[in-house]
């Protein structure tokens, strides 16, 4: 079935930036209508110490072009130009000074310039603001999160809260400005046997803000989906209570990635065994799944406008799927273990080949200019007197090719007694 508005045939060219565990960013260009998908460039040199742990795109504004923020395992955060991967305005200081790796990088849109927020593996949260004079990003504030072994973090849609999850501490939502705990979540209720999982949140994703209640400007609370290392998926609503509003088990491995759809009713989940599924919220029912990933899926990214899901992981392959039909659109093998994926603005299309200038009077061997002129003329300028009166527009029916059934039809009966020969290329 083809979905109107989401027809594959009308898809534009795409560009996906994929980070790996060797400190490289690989640029994958997908042609229009998924004709081809291949790596077009690699930014960075191979270095396992500078493994990239997180990617964030920094949209351009005014004179500042699009940029890509990259957080590395050695603790440094770098800013790369979105078009060619060269170093852009640096972040000062690049490393937090504690020697821990960067866990995530977020871009918080603000009234003027956005703020860059980085979270280290030890829970050190830093905020960067752009300096007006030299364009570099300087550290504006820093505070310590409640969690000391951070594994996931996220910024809520309003840009005021930072959710931090990891080992040893349940979910906490901090106010970005000063680090004060705005919401302290509790874990799931004990199981029937009375067992409680140790706090271990491995992935989280905020849901789009629910519509504000009547008479108020802002929605009551923030809603986010959290995945744990004990294969549970939980939905927290800060307005409804500290316990999760939904707590379901899915799969048998740790949840590694979450991506919520803009509608707010579905959420994509992936785990360490390469399973990807889409859950309906708030019921928590599995609506569908994606097969194909052979290794842990480290990153799930939804395209901002089109219904495309990018998944990348330890099986060294980037896959693009259609979110509604769950069909595979493109698959690219990228040789190294992948850790993050981000959609970027597709490169501008190549300029059209210029038409040859018409020869003035035609030299030897060249066709006469009159013949040339006729060929390059637009078809509309053909003699219109020859055309009959206005015709009805020709209906273009979609061509539906029917597969011949085995054993029936004229072709199969004619081949009785003959063996079909399959020619291998």
């Amino acid at each position, binding site marked *: 079935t083809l979905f109107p508005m989401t027809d594959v045939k009308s898809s534009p060219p795409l560009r996906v930036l994929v980070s790996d565990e*060797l400190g490289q960013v690989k640029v994958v260009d997908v042609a229009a209508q998924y004709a081809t998908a291949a790596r077009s460039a690699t930014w960075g040199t191979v270095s396992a110490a500078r493994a990239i742990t997180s990617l964030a795109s920094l949209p351009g504004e005014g004179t500042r072009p699009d940029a890509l923020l990259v957080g590395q395992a050695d603790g440094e955060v770098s800013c790369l130009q979105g078009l060619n991967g060269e170093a852009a305005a640096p972040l000062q200081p690049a490393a937090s000074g504690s020697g821990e790796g960067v866990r995530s990088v977020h871009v918080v849109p603000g009234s003027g310039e956005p703020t860059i927020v980085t979270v280290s593996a030890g829970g050190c949260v830093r905020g960067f603001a752009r300096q007006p004079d030299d364009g570099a990003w300087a550290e504006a504030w820093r505070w310590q999160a409640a969690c000391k072994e951070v594994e996931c973090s996220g910024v809520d849609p309003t840009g005021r809260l930072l959710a931090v999850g990891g080992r040893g501490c349940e979910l906490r939502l901090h106010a970005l400005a000063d680090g004060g705990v705005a919401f302290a979540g509790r874990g799931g209720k004990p199981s029937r046997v009375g067992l409680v999982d140790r706090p271990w949140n491995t992935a989280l994703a905020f849901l789009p803000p629910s519509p504000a209640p009547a008479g108020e400007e802002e929605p009551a609370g923030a809603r986010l989906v959290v995945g744990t290392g004990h294969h549970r998926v939980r939905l927290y609503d800060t307005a409804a209570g500290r316990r999760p509003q939904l707590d379901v088990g899915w799969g048998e491995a740790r949840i590694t990635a979450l991506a919520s759809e803009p509608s707010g009713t579905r959420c994509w989940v992936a785990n360490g065994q390469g399973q990807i599924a889409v859950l309906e919220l708030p019921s928590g029912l599995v609506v569908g799944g994606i097969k*194909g990933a052979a290794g842990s899926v480290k990153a799930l990214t939804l395209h901002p406008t089109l219904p495309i899901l990018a998944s990348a992981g330890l099986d060294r392959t980037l896959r693009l799927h259609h979110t509604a039909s769950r069909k595979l659109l493109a698959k690219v093998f990228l040789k190294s273990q992948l850790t993050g994926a981000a959609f970027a603005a597709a490169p501008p299309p190549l300029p059209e080949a210029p038409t040859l200038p018409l020869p003035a009077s035609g030299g030897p061997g060249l066709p006469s200019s009159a013949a040339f002129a006729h060929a390059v003329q637009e078809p509309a300028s053909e003699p219109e007197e020859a055309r009959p009166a206005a015709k009805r527009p020709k209906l273009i029916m979609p061509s539906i090719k029917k597969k011949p059934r085995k054993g029936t039809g004229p072709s199969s009966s004619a081949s009785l007694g003959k063996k079909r020969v399959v020619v291998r290329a």
Partner: protein
Amino acid sequence: MVEHIGNKQVRSTRFRELKRKEDRRKKAERKKRQAAAEKAEKAGAEPVPKPVPKTIENTRELDETIVAPDDEEVAAEETQDEFADHFKRVRPPHVLITTCFKPSGIMYKFIAELLEVFPNATYYKRQGFPLKKIVQFAKNRDFSDVVVINEDRKMINGMLVTHLPEGPTAQFRLSNLKLSTEISNHGRISSHRPEVVLNNFSTRLGHRVGRLFASLFHQDPAFRGRRVVTFHNQRDFIFFRHHRYIFEEKADRRTKEARVQARLQELGPRFTLQLESLQKGTFDSKSGEFEWLNSGEQDTSRRRFKL
């Protein structure tokens, strides 16, 4: 050809006729071909090259995961991966061998042979410790690898290899085990460090698994001992063989020229492995992350292999 005949007896009779006709035609064609080849050879012309039959290996569909021999990115990654220290000869191998819970007699015989195969290996009783704890103990005592052999109802059926300290964990299914006592004319294993031969590990995953096997043995073999351990991958089955070789000059039967040939004598155990999963990090099957698991592959065919 006969699918349209519904009556089983008529169909089977017709099929037999057609098959006989086909066999006779092929025989006649073969005779003609052989007669022509003999005639040509007698006349002195070049013999027609024998047609090579198509096998699954030589019609293998090459996919994009196969590593090219000159791939710089893979080479650069391999200088920095978990096995780099072993290949740079900074960290010699020291293998800890243990078993599943409550092994039976055949396990002890197999482990006795494995202790002779690996040049630097130590056996510890399982004693009911969970695997995660055993990995921790091995790290404390500076082991480089942990090998766990699994047994079910007196049949050895599995092997788990974990590289330490944070290396990948591979789980294999072990089959067709033959101990050296069951191999006729087997030789005695010496204590020379063996050479390691890794055949057909062509894809990216194959490279990882091949390096895992190589990290169980020393990087500088004693060539004087003429001992070789082979991990031969064919159609995703890994065949383990252990031989002693000797180079001899022998007269070739056809050309009657003296040629140096290798003669082999099989030594230690012989078994077959199939990769079930490769997990990143040390053993943690519940909440670990897998690099490869034999569950999700969709776009696959009979002529496409993973290693």
